[in-house]
C-alpha cells in the first residue's frame, strides 16, 4: 500500500471513530447533573456552585448537562425509571429543577430520594412557604415582573396594577409583547395572571388536584376573552415571541416598551448588557405576576446518590443562598434569616411577601392548548 493511501485510510478511520456512538458510563465521583432551565442558571452553576462545591468536596466533580427543556429532562427521568427496572446505571444523579411527581408514579416507584429524611443539615432552614414535597429542595425562587424601557416610559407612569397595564397596552398599541405560554415562564405567568384576573384574583382557587374539564372551561374562557381583547394592541397586531429570550431581544432592540420577564433573567440581562441600563423593573401591586421556586431532586438509583445528597445540602448553605440573591437575582429558598445580613438589607425592596404560584399538571395542559386554540389565532394582520 502506498504511503499516501495508507495515511488516507488511517485518517479516515480515525475520523470515523469520532462519529461512532460512544459508550458512556457514569463515573464514580462525577455527579451527573441535569437542568431544564435557561442559560443564566447553567452559568450560575458553572461559575459559582461547581467551583465552590468541588473545592469543599475534594474528589467529587460535577458534570453539568443542559437537558434543553422540561420535556428533555423528563426524558432523562424516563430513562432513569427504565434503568431502575433493569437495575442498570441511569447516568443521572441530580435534576436542578424538577417536580418529583413526574414522571407519573415516580415517588411511589422510589425514583427520587426523600430529602427530608436524608439528613440534610440545612433542611430546617428552608422557607416553609417554599416547600412543596419532601422529595425536593427549593433553592431558588423567581418571579415574573414587567421590564420596561425608561427612555420611553417614565418610571412614575409605569403600570402598577392589572387595570393600569391593560389601559397602557391599549393606549400604546404595538408596544407590548409576551411569549407563547408554553415556551417560557414569562409569557406563561402573564397568561396565568390574566386567569387570576378573570377569577377574582384568588391564587388559592387553583390547585394541582381541582382541575376538571368543566372547571377549566369556566375559569379559562373569561381569561381568553381578556387576552383576545388585548391581542390587537400587541406588537404587530397580535404577535407572540417564541420564548423568554426573544422577548428580551425585542425590548433590547427598542421594538417594544414593556414585556413580562423573569426577575432573575432581567437582572442578569441588565448586568451583562443584553438589556440597556435604562431598563426599569416593576411589579404589579394588586396581585403580583406569578412565579415560583425551583426545586432540586436527587435520583435514588444514581451511582453518586450520596454525593448528590451532599450537593442538595450544599446549595442550601448561606454561601450559595446569598449568591442566588446577589449573582442570580433570584430569591433564596431558605428563610430570609439564613441569608447574609447586608444582602437582606440591600434587597429589602424586592423581597416578596407572597409569590402566587400556579399549579402545573392538568391545568398547564389546558392553559397551553386553550391559549393556542383561542388566543393565538386572533391576529389582525392588517392593523
Amino acid at each position, binding site marked *: 500500500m502506498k504511503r499516501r493511501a495508507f495515511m488516507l485510510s488511517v485518517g479516515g478511520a480515525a475520523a470515523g471513530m469520532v462519529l461512532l456512538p460512544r459508550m458512556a458510563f457514569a463515573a464514580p465521583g462525577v455527579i451527573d447533573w441535569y437542568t431544564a432551565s435557561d442559560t443564566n442558571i447553567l452559568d450560575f452553576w458553572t461559575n459559582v456552585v461547581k467551583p465552590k462545591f468541588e473545592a469543599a468536596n475534594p474528589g467529587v466533580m460535577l458534570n453539568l448537562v443542559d437537558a434543553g*427543556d422540561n*420535556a428533555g429532562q423528563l426524558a432523562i427521568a424516563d430513562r432513569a425509571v427504565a434503568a431502575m427496572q433493569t437495575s442498570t446505571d441511569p447516568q443521572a444523579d441530580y435534576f436542578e429543577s424538577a417536580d418529583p411527581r413526574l414522571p407519573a408514579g415516580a415517588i411511589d416507584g422510589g425514583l427520587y430520594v426523600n430529602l427530608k429524611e436524608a439528613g440534610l443539615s440545612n433542611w430546617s432552614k428552608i422557607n416553609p412557604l417554599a416547600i412543596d414535597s419532601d422529595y425536593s429542595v427549593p433553592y431558588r425562587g423567581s418571579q415574573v415582573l414587567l421590564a420596561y424601557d425608561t427612555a420611553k416610559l417614565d418610571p412614575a407612569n409605569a403600570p402598577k396594577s392589572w387595570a393600569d397595564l391593560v389601559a397602557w397596552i391599549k393606549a400604546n398599541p404595538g408596544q407590548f409583547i409576551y411569549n*407563547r405560554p*408554553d415556551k417560557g415562564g414569562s409569557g406563561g405567568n402573564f397568561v396565568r395572571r390574566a386567569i387570576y384576573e378573570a377569577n377574582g384574583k384568588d391564587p388559592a382557587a387553583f390547585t394541582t388536584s381541582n382541575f376538571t374539564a368543566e372547571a377549566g372551561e369556566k375559569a379559562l374562557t373569561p381569561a381568553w376573552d381578556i387576552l383576545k381583547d388585548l391581542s390587537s394592541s400587541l*406588537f*404587530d397586531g397580535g*404577535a*407572540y*415571541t*417564541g420564548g423568554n429570550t*426573544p422577548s428580551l*431581544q*425585542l425590548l433590547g*432592540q*427598542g*421594538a417594544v416598551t414593556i414585556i413580562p420577564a423573569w426577575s432573575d433573567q432581567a437582572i442578569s440581562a441588565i448586568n451583562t448588557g443584553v438589556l440597556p441600563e435604562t431598563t426599569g423593573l416593576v411589579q404589579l401591586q394588586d396581585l403580583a405576576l406569578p412565579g415560583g421556586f425551583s426545586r432540586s431532586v436527587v435520583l435514588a438509583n444514581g451511582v453518586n446518590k450520596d454525593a448528590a445528597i451532599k450537593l442538595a445540602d450544599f446549595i442550601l448553605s448561606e454561601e450559595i443562598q446569598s449568591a442566588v440573591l446577589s449573582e442570580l437575582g433570584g430569591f433564596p429558598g431558605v428563610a430570609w434569616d439564613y441569608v447574609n445580613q447586608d444582602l437582606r438589607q440591600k434587597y429589602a425592596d424586592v423581597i416578596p411577601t407572597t409569590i402566587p404560584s400556579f399549579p402545573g399538571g392538568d391545568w398547564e*395542559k389546558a392553559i*397551553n*392548548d386553550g391559549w*393556542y*386554540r383561542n388566543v*393565538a*389565532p386572533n*391576529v389582525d*394582520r392588517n392593523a
Partner: protein
Amino acid sequence: MSLTPASDIVGKKPGRGLSGLLLVAIPVFLVCWMVIWPILSAIWRTVWIRNDGGTGSSFSLETYVFFFSDQYSLNNLYVTLWTTAVCAALLLVICIPIALYLRFSTGKLAAYVQGLAIFPMFVPSIILSYALIRVLGPNGTVDLLLNAVNLPKIRSPYLTPWGPVIGLVWDNIPLTVLILVSGLGSVSNQSIEAARDVGAGRLATFWYIILPRISNSILVAISFTVLGLFSAFTLPYVLGPAAPEMMGPFMQRTFRDLNDPVMAITQAVIAFGFCIVFGLFYVRSVAKNRAP
C-alpha cells in the same frame, strides 16, 4: 458442471449475486429497521387505540377524524402546505439562475458565487434564526439602513408566516443549487452551440434545450427540499407566528406540552402521507434514469 456459452459471455459466476445482495443488505436492513418499521408502528398505534378504561384496544380512526374536523389542526396543515409551496417556488426562481450562471461561466467570480451559494449549508438554523431577527426584525439592520437614508421602516416578517419562508429559502439554497448544477452538467456545450447556430435566442435555448435536460434534476431538487421544508422545525418555531403553526412545531407541542403522543403520531402520519407523494416522484425519476 458445464458452463453454457451464454453464461460465459455475460460473465455470470456463482456467488456474485449473493455478494451483491449482501452489499445492499445493510442499507436495506437499516431502512427497514429505522424507517419502514417506525412508519408501520406509527400507523398501527394511531388506528389501534386503547379503550377509555385502559382495558384492551380496538380499531378506531377517531384521531384522524378529529384532525380533519378540527379547524385549528387544518389551519396548521394549510400553512405548512402554503409555506412549502411558496418556498419551493421561490427556491426554483432563485436557484435556477444561480445554477445556470455557475454552469456557463468560468473565472474567479463564479468561484466566489459558488462559495456564497453553498455557505448557508454551514450555518446552523438556530443561529440563522437569531441572525435574521437581528437583520430583518423590528429595528434591525435593514431598518437602520433604511432610516439612514430617510426611508420608512419595513414591515418586519418576524413572527409572521413570511419569517419562516425567508429563513427556509435561504437555508435550502445550497442543496437546490448543488442538485441543479449537477443536472446542468448533462447539458452539453455542443447542443447549446448548435441551437445558437440555428438562431435560437437565450430564452429559446433555455426553454427548448436546457430545461428538458434538467427537468429531472428539478424534480429531484423539489422533492428533496419539499421533504425538508415539510418537517422544518427550528425556523418556523423561532421566526413564525404562534398560530397557525407549521406541522413541525405543532407535532412537537402536541407530543411534549400536551402529552398526547397518539395525536402527535397521527399528525406525523398525515405529514408523512404528503411527503410520500414527493418521495415517490423522486423514486420514479431515479428509476426512470436507471432504466436501460
